[in-house]
């Protein structure tokens, strides 16, 4: 069964329609890369998956989003529990104004975990999975804001992992990062796919090519085409896809 299913999804910010009749299925343990020009609805769709769009004033949604077969927009659905299962890494690194250690244990603490030993273990594991452990293991009490951009972003990945999600959403995670940090983030993503399902929104088609199993092309709120990465970049079926990938527009 697919991990995530969207059926006839429509989303509006006030009067503006950001996503139109979107239907897509995302498989377990795959990395789905979503590409497309600005304002194509990529980030809107991503934020529908963890219901972060609920925070936007005048946001409206129609259609279904099913995770493991259950509609996450159903009446009475537990949004906090959803966000624990579906983690997010944002475009600009967003460390909370606390130490590295506190950032990572923030999520688990809110879930009720307080045993020091357990938290220590979570911190170590998450940082290792995010390829950051060696760099910060001696200075966990340092304010997170003092890390470099690339390190902050990996911290955010570790932070998201600390709550043991099943799905991780990446919203243009390397937009503020230098190539080396970007490479480290991508390396982490490839390893993470073994345990998690990953949805990656990116403005860099090359990044999608490097990392994804399948690629989806969004244009003006619609899903134009979705295909395995190799075929997508060598033999796209839709002329609009071809146009975007080859740089004719975007």
């Amino acid at each position, binding site marked *: 069964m697919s991990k995530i299913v969207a059926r006839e999804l429509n989303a509006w910010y006030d009067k503006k329609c950001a996503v139109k009749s979107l239907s897509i299925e995302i498989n377990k343990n795959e990395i789905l890369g979503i590409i497309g020009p600005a304002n194509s609805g990529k980030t809107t769709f991503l934020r529908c998956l963890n219901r972060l769009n609920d*925070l936007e004033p005048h946001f409206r949604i129609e259609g279904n989003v099913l995770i493991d077969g259950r509609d996450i927009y159903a009446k009475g659905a537990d949004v906090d*529990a*959803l966000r624990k299962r579906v983690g997010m890494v*944002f475009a600009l690194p967003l460390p*909370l104004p606390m130490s590295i250690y506190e950032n990572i244990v923030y999520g688990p603490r809110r879930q009720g975990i307080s045993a020091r030993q357990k938290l220590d273990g979570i911190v170590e594991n998450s940082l290792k999975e995010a390829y950051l452990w060696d760099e910060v293991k001696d200075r966990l009490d340092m304010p997170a804001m003092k890390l470099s951009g690339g390190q902050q972003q990996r911290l955010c990945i570790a932070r998201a992992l600390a*709550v043991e999600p099943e799905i991780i959403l990446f919203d243009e995670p390397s937009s503020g990062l230098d190539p080396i940090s970007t490479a480290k983030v991508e390396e982490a993503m490839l390893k993470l796919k073994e345990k998690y399902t990953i949805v990656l929104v990116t403005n860099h088609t090359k990044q999608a090519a490097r990392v994804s199993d399948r690629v989806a092309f969004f244009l003006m709120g619609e899903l134009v085409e979705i295909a395995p990465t190799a075929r997508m970049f060598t033999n796209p079926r839709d002329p609009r896809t071809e146009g975007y990938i080859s740089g004719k527009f975007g």
Partner: protein
Amino acid sequence: MNETLDTSTTPPAAVKETLLKQILNPRMVQKGAFFLLLLATLLVIVPVGMIVVIIVAKGAPAISWEFLSAMPSRGMRAGGIFPAIIGSIYLVGATIVFAIPVGVFSAIYLVEYAGNTLLTRMVKLAIINLAGVPSIVYGLFGLGLFVIFLGFGPSILAGALTLAIMILPIIITTSKEALDAVPKSFREASLALGASKWQTIRHVVLPNALPGILTGIILGISRAAGETAPILFTVAAFYLPRLPTSVFDQVMVLPYHLFVVSTQIPNIEQSYTYGTALVLVGMVLVTNLAAILLRSKYRKKL
């Protein structure tokens, strides 16, 4: 336009005209105008300084440990103002016990929960109205509701509740400003980790906004400590030979004591009244200064 005039040979009308032109020259006008503006500003600031200086100069001689710690005697012409100091502390303390939770939660409501609805508009209007009610009207309100209707009688309880409602706008407005200043991204990051809305407020937003909220509380304390009209009929006692033992007691308070000794007691030593004024002004200005410093330190951090 700096022509030199040979006043001996040019006719008087021309002299006058050139002089006039020099005065009405835009740069001169500006200099004159700016000087007047500076004068106006000094007219505001200098008297403040003078008031403080006079009070300090004339009140300092009266300040002694005895003055601050003894009970008044000889019809309040001698002894100390201890009960007034203690009464003020108790009253202001009780006031903020009520005002802080209601005020901060109100601000949280406005920032985190209120939508763009008519109700929200009404709440904001109500806060503005509360801020504009004259202090004596608060006194009447406190008398009508707390002293008489609820039967608390003139008491710390009645006075504190009245003052609490009066300083509510101060606390709400500053707390709201502090909460608004917390970046939206912090909230998003917290929620994205599965924290609930209240958890986000409690563990991320509030700690971050704390300095600003504290500033508002200190400003509220400063205000409550100096007010007389709201407490005239709700708590203030003319002369109480003993200290309060419960919230249902009346108390002596500094501002009312100053009013009494400066208007109702004849033949009182000048330094005594100035001393009372000094203690009151000292308390108020010190707390205000603390709030200002805290706020500027906090704003620099952002």
